[in-house]
Structure formats: structure tokens, C-alpha cells
């Protein structure tokens, strides 16, 4: 079984439960955490690489716990020509992948920190953030 990459989104209520531990223990999966943004009592995000026989069962378990599971087949790119560095995306992006660099006040995009939630794609007034499949 090749590893599958998935994006997980946790509601605030379960952000502090040991569900990744369960994936390893109960479903015998190998987990590689690519990105994570978890804070107690806040919505969390995680991008995982999962390998093992029972990947689908493990993901079903996550869904039952209220985690939104999405395959990671897309990436977000910024159309540099259209971005005006207004900043309207910076307080929307949940992982800090879009942020003001100071003192230049240019908005930087860190693709490594992006979890492809696509909130910026709709919120950007210049339609500068694009999904690439």
C-alpha cells in the first residue's frame, strides 16, 4: 500500500484527544506528520502521510470522532501578478501561511505551512490565491 496523504481538521472540542495515538495503536498505521497546527480549545489542522493495511478503517474512525478528512491532492499557489499585498487573507489563514512581513508590509505565502483549507481562495478580493490539482 503506498502512503496516502490526508488533511485532517479537528473541531475545538476534540483537539486535545489522543486520536493519532489510536491510529497507531488500534489500526496499526505508520504515521508521518507533515504539518500540524493544534492548539488546545481551538480548531486544529494536520497533514498526515498514512501507510498500513487498515488506512480506510483508520480514516473512518477519525470521521466518527468528528474529524474532517480530505485527501491531499491539491495545492494552493499565489498568482503574484494579481496579489496587491493588501493583507485581507492574513487574519483568515488558520496556519499563518499567509502573513505580513515587517517592516516591508509585503504579504508572504509559505506553501510549506499551507494545509489547503482554501479559505483564502474565496476571501482574497483580488482572486490571487488559486487551487492547483
Amino acid at each position, binding site marked *: 500500500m503506498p502512503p496516502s496523504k490526508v488533511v485532517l481538521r479537528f473541531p475545538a472540542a476534540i483537539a486535545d484527544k489522543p486520536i493519532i495515538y489510536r491510529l497507531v495503536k488500534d489500526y496499526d498505521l505508520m504515521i508521518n506528520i507533515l504539518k500540524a497546527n493544534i492548539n488546545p480549545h481551538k480548531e486544529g489542522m494536520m497533514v498526515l502521510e498514512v501507510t498500513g493495511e487498515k488506512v480506510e478503517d483508520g480514516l473512518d474512525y477519525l470521521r466518527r470522532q468528528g474529524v474532517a478528512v480530505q485527501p491531499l491532492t491539491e495545492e494552493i499557489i499565489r498568482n503574484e501578478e494579481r496579489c*496587491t*499585498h*493588501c493583507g485581507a487573507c492574513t*487574519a*483568515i489563514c488558520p496556519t499563518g501561511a499567509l502573513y*505580513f512581513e515587517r517592516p*516591508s508590509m509585503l504579504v508572504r505565502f509559505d506553501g510549506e505551512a499551507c494545509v489547503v483549507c482554501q479559505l483564502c481562495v474565496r*476571501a482574497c478580493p*483580488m482572486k490571487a490565491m488559486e487551487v492547483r490539482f
Partner: protein
Amino acid sequence: MGVHRTFAEINAKIKAGKVVVVTAEELVSLVEEKGVKQAAQEVDVVTTGTFSPMCSSGAFFNFGHSVPRIKFFRVWLNDVPAYAGLAAVDAFLGATAVREGDPLNTDPPGEFRYGGGHVIEDLVARRPVKLKAVGYGTDCYPRREIETVITLDDINEAFLFNPRNAYQNYACAVNTGDRTLYTYMGVLKPRLGNAHYATSGQLSPLLKDPFFRTIGIGTRIFLGGGIGYVVNHGTQHFPSIPDLPPGAVRIPSGGTLAVMGDLKQMSPRWLRGTSMLGYGVSLSVGIGVAIPILDEEVCYYASRPDRELYAPIVDYAEAYPQRRSENLGWVSYAELRSGKITINGKEVPTASLSSYARAREICQILKEWIQEGKFLLTEPVAPLPGPEAGIVPKTLDIRGVKGGRG
């Protein structure tokens, strides 16, 4: 007695290549270092700028005449309706006009991907635009419909005419409610999840000449990358001095400008179609104003830093839609630009809708235009009303029609 300069003296220096121009940011540092008196001695002109969505914008066109002639009754540009209630082939396209068939907010929040602001951007980018119009047929204008393609260079006149731009100051928008709000101030997350502000603070034109001593009717400006003019005070120009917190410089905050300029000189870098999720379309406009340092007082106000300029915090959950004039306090542009502010004891991340980086670039371009002798300053032909005019907002009350011809 301190320094005194006239517009004519400054223009003579520009022509002689001897003018000293600094950007608003440079003036702030210069005054911090040397004081107002010395800075006013040294500097002739300071440049200011802003780049922000400005909904009250649009453009007038004259498209030329077809064979046979048509008098537009209804007209569309790339399926966005323009206003045709003018002479035969004149029209006005508003920045917030939405394309026909747009789902709007039927499945909220609507995306509003294309509208008047985008048509204006397409035109200045020299992209072809579809013109469609219908007429009702007259003896002098027999044609009843037309569908063709135009570019900005094919038509007679095109000028940007924006009834309200360059707001002197603006609210910092927040949401104390329980659901996400989709507003012209961007996406506001519930329970004070974020705070959005919208001026370039210490670079912003009307915050730097707050009593309109140098900016007035006839002032030449940077507009959309070309040259434009202030033609009037803008709509909703209410330049009264609000009840500011200690530490704030006491200046009015509700001034606005009506501006116009030749669209054919402008560029898509400085006129940008804008889509506000769940709200609508708009046009982001770049404006730059050069302020002549006529004396120390002009220098003093032009050099006020972000930490002395304050914006009111306004709740868009209740207060704004219900037109309640309360606010949740004031916050300085220095705090806003730091990335977080504190409201009711809660730390709230801030972000802006207007681009500080682009505003800074406008200050720089205008500075170069002046240094190169390409841009002369204009003395206003009439002043803008200031706080002493005592203008207060009128409200729109709901009542039945009596008399009149409605």
C-alpha cells in the same frame, strides 16, 4: 517666523530641478530626527498615497457612432450593465455593478467574481471588451441593437469619475457576534476573531492634510497610475473632529474626495477589479497626493506618525448595520499595523484591506515624477469644506410619498 512658501515658488523649484521631495514615511522620520521647524525648512513637498477598494468609483464613456446610428436605451460591457440615461452613445459604468446572471447571495456567501470594477481593469489592461446595447429606434437613431467588441483605444473618451474616494480615516471593523460576517471590510470571524482596517495611516492623503490647507478643488493627483484631479469634496464628506482618545492628534476624520482622470493613461496595476466575498464587486484604486510644505503647520500635520493617528473600532455584527454610532474604542495605526490589538481584554489579530506596500510605492512614484519635473503642483481653485462648515450626516427616513411626482 518660520518658513513660508507658495505653490508658485515650489513649482519654480520643480522646473529648475531643485525641489526637495520626500515621501510621507521619510517626513515622519525626518521630523522625529530634526523636529518640525528644521524639516519644514528643508522639505518643499511630501508625497502621500493609498491603494484600497473604493466602491464609489466608475467611468464615463463615449463609444462613437455606428452605421446606422443607435441611441442606447440599455447598455452592457462584458454583460455588466452600465447606465445609459445620457446622450446617445454616452454611458456611465459603476464599479459595483454586477454581471447579469450572477448568483449574488442566493447561496451565501456569493463570490461576485466579475463586475464593473473588473471591466474597468480589463479596459486599462487593453483587453477587448464586449459592448452590447439596445435602443428603441427613432428617426435620427434607427438602429435597435448592437453587439461588438471595443478596446480602450477604439473609443472616443473614457474617464474615471469617482464620487467618493480616499476616505480620510476609516473604521477598524470587528465582529462580536456568533457567526462569520461577509462584509465590504472582508471576512470578519465571530467573537472578535479578527479586526480589519482600511487606510494607509501615516501615508494616507487626507490624514496628512487634515484641515485641507493644500488639497482642494483642482488639485492634480496620481490617479490609477495616471494624472487626475480633485473635482469636489466627495459624497459623505463629514469632516468633523471626533472625540479622540489621549495621545491622538486632534484632526477631522470624515473627509472624502471626488476625483476624475483620463482612463487612457491609467494602468491595471493601480485600478483593480475586486471581489468581496458575500458582499459584491468593487474597484481598488491607487491615489497619490503631493502636499506642498507651505509652512510649519502643514509640515506638522503631514509628519504625524501612525502612533498619533487613531481609528474607531466598529462592530459589524450590530452597530454598523443598525446605524448605531457607538464604537468599541479607538486604536492607533501603529497598533493596527503591528498585527494585533486588544479589545475588551482579548487579543485580536489585525489585517488590512488597503495595501500599505502599494501605498508606499505610490508615494515613491509621485516623488520621482516631481523630481523629474513631470508633475507640477496646483493651487486649489476652491477649498474643501472643513470642520468649521459643521456638515452633519443626513439620514434616510422611511415615509410615504406626498406631493412630488413620484
